[in-house]
């Protein structure tokens, strides 16, 4: 039982990371129709900056803030220089361009900071004992921080005028234009928010996994699986999908086979999608002539 609790908490902690990343992906996708493949590698740049600051004796929390700031700045730069010139509605081209950005960013990180794994500082160390299980505090902090971040995002979208405007653009860019909303400004805000969430997720993930230039590829793919499971345009779906994937991933690794985690996670996702192509919370669209 204590083993199960441990696996569950560790699964929820991974899931919180995937959920945060997925939330970032969905926010950007809804606002600008771009599936941002470069999100993980841009966040990696942020992580390396945070590690360098930490090595120079800066507090971990400040390092994390710096990581978020760097990631957001890099993301906005990418959007303004290579995504915006593509024009509207270039779903595939935009995806491939972000793939190109991701190749460049990973390689740059590798040539500046080296390919050797670095350790990333935890916010807290130690464990707490609860019903016979020694739970790492970092996992609990991860879950807590992610929950707070998700709540804030929820508040922004549900309660503020800015959030309403962002939901409005996501629902229909055409109608938003008729009403006179500035799509570019909202797009920039969405990119900044999405990348900030990704950087935060990366900072929560990195202490457990260590830092190499490709460290965030695995959580990015799991976040993808999560958002497809959740329905691609649903923010609740992204969070719940990420949590589902995280828990399943850890359960499979502990009780099925540690060697076939990807097989288990992705087969599950594809099977769910074959039965329900629109995901758990997505809506079916119908083309009218």
């Amino acid at each position, binding site marked *: 039982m204590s083993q199960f609790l441990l696996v569950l908490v560790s699964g929820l902690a991974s899931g919180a990371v995937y959920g945060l990343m997925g939330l970032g992906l969905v926010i950007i996708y809804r606002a600008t129709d771009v599936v941002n493949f470069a999100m993980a590698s841009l966040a990696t740049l942020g992580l390396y900056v945070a590690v360098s600051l930490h090595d120079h004796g800066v507090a971990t929390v400040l390092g994390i803030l710096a990581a978020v700031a760097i990631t957001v700045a890099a993301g906005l730069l990418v959007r303004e220089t290579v995504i915006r010139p593509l024009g509207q509605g270039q779903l595939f081209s935009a995806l*491939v*361009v972000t793939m190109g950005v991701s190749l460049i960013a990973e390689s740059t990180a590798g040539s500046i900071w080296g390919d050797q794994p670095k350790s990333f500082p935890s916010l807290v160390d130690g464990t707490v004992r609860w019903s016979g299980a020694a739970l790492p505090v970092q996992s609990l902090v991860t879950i807590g921080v992610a929950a707070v971040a998700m709540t804030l995002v929820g508040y922004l979208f549900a309660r503020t005028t800015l959030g309403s405007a962002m939901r409005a653009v996501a629902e229909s860019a*055409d109608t938003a234009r008729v009403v006179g909303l500035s799509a570019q400004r909202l797009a920039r805000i969405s990119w900044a928010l999405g990348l900030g969430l990704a950087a935060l997720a990366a900072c929560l993930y990195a202490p457990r996994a260590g830092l190499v230039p490709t460290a965030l590829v695995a959580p990015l793919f799991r976040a993808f699986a999560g958002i497809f499971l959740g329905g691609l345009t649903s923010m609740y779906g992204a969070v719940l999908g990420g949590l589902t994937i995280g828990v399943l991933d850890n359960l499979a690794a502990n009780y099925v086979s540690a060697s076939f985690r990807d097989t288990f996670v992705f087969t599950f996702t*594809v099977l769910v999608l074959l039965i329900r192509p629109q995901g758990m919370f997505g809506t*079916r669209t119908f083309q*009218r*002539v």
Partner: protein
Amino acid sequence: MVFNRSLLAKAALGPAAGAVLMAFMASGAIPAYQMYSVGLAAVYTVVVLSVGLLAGWSGIWSVGHPAFFAIGAYVAAYGSGHDWPLEAVVLGAVAIGAVLGAFLGYAGARFSVLYIALLTLAFTMVTLELVNRWSSVTGGDQGVPVVQLRSALGLGTVLGGGAEAQYLAVGAAAVVLALAVPAAASGLRMRLVAAKSHPLAARTIGIAPEAQSSLSFAVSAACTCLAGVLLGLLTGFVSPDPFSLSFGISLIAACVLGGVGSILGAVAGGVYLTWNPSLSSTVGLPQPVVQGLVLICVLLFLPGGVVPFLARPARGLARRLLRRADTRPAPPAEESTAPAALRPPTDDSVLLRLEHVSVSYGGLQALEDASLTLRRNEILAVIGPNGAGKTTLLNALSGLTGNGRVSGTADFAGRPLLRTRATARRRLGIGRTFQHAEVFSELTVAENVLCTRRRITGRDRAEVARLLRSVGLAEVADRRPGELPFGLQKRLDLARAMAENPKLLVLDEPFGGLDASERALLAGHIRRLHAGGTAVVVIDHVLDDLFSVAHRVLAFDFGRTIGEGTPDTVLQDPKVRSSYLGTVDARTRPPEHTGERGMIRLHGIGHTYGGVVALRDVDLDVRQGVVFGVAGANGAGKSTLAGILHGSLTAAHGVRETGAGVRTSLAPEGRALFKTLSLRENLEVAAYAGGVTGARLRERLEETVEWLPVRLRDRMSAPAGGLSGGEQQMLAIARALIVAPDVLIVDEPALGLAPALVDEVYDRLAALARDGLTVVLLEQLLSRAMSVCHEVAVLHEGVVAAHGRPGDPAFAAQAEAAYFGGGPEAGPNAAAAARASRVN
């Protein structure tokens, strides 16, 4: 498939190049250390071709091909370890690839581009994990050798890593290229591209997108597995390293670089992939950086790819040279322009019988209890205002009702129609056209029609050429539809529907967006089709032209039939007449206190959409305090005018002037609310967009909520999608009011509303006008515009055909004539008289 000489020559290019390359390799002209690279380039060419043609022809972007590549290589290794003959290894690998690919293609057809990317990504991840962990077969990280494969047919032995493998790779690539060339000219490719560029239209000509994507993915995967076998032989050793996900990205980069869907582009892509490492070391940057930069630059600056970019000027040059050589006069067009008279139907037997057919989407009843019979060789026109259910009726006939619920029975030529799949209805003999000419943009004009055939013979080509000549498209047969004006695209849509001589043609607004001469030409086509024995169901808003080709007219409103008659009598039915003109009780017009201040002035305004003229030379002057009406039938240009008056749409020609500090606000056609947002959020967002924030926003919000009817005030936190049509309209007007505009523009507020709600909406608009707000009202019903407005302009086909004041008794008749016929002399009676002489 037709093998003409130029196609054979092109197909022979691949093997010829391969033979030359092999000769070079044998002569020692290629240094030994480059021999391996040449073989590798051949293998990569096959993979890039597989990925690129799948993307270009079927629109499926796969990141699953590294997995197929790996499967091929490991089958070679396994076969070599178990003494399988070469042929068995190749067949085995190809069969595995085809089966898995067919499954992925079938599953992927239900998904969008992004979902297919995830599906194939998952496939790659799973395959790579299996490869890494299943070490008893794959050797895990250590890899497995490919020692040799012996041919069972006695063609010799291929040693892993030996020179034979290099020759084999080049030879195989040559054969694959040689097969790809005729495939590119075949009906198969046309059907794939058709299914990709417009799945819905493809269904109406009998192409099932699922089957197409399954087939193309199977072929593509099989070729990649073959390339994997070659790679195993070429390297003599298989390990997981070359099959990473970044290889998948590199493959996409190579495809995009060479040109997606281009065969020569695939060769360029294969060469690029092989020598990318040397290129990177030459420029002194890491390999991924070079790849990323190439990817981004190509997409930004040469989105079509390098080969098509270079090929275009070359082809243009060739065409110019050929044209100079070709001095034969063009064959005369067979357009018999003399308008044949419409003959009465010759055959009295029933072709189509609909009984109580209803279609509903969720809670929306789009078509209710429609019944009709159509005789063979009869032309039936269906009329009705916007939203009456006309297009839904056509969609029910051609099977494009999507996830709508269809009930009732329909019988076509003695067979039940409603249970027949859309793709099978073409075979039954039903062809259809679309309101917006949904042609396949990535095929040429001739291919658009040819793709209706599964296998294309020389006779088919001749027949299609004749068909194109008959509709006047022979000159542009080799062009893409996108290069043609809208009128020609509509003709192409018609030609595609006419190919294979259907028994029933279903025409969706064929006259819409055409000018007068094009409409006359089209009417001629329809009459000739009828003379050839085809029955036609046609809907349109251009009544004059519609009636000139119809034997019988059916009128629809609110999803049900409201009247029936001949073209001469149907408009005399009071119910039908009122559905167009409206029956409005004398409404009290708000008192006019027109100031002299000009609010919006338009001068010489014209606008076009992709060659279709929406507005021409419009002059309007909206003065302060007026209720200004613009009346016009559907498609007359009202919404375009609304956008231009509002300022959110910039006119192509002419000048728009506004008075100093005048703020305009638009309640657009169809409300355009954000349905997932609450009522309050809809208002807030509009205020936010208008720059109203903070305390002022709260104040305006309160005032605007006060304006709303009580039943809405209680539901401010409910999503707007849950409101009824009338309530949505009220909210849309409130949303326009929240920025405190000086001029309120309301586009068709009565659209789709029940009469009582229309009254409520209009009463509220009148109240606003009474309080001094300037209102511009765009209205489909002339009588309604006449009853509430101080000044009315009648819009007909983008031109202000009449302009006056409803109080003026002479203006009423003038306005009605302008509404139907564009001018007083072309009124409905004159048109009816002209028609009577034609029909009988």
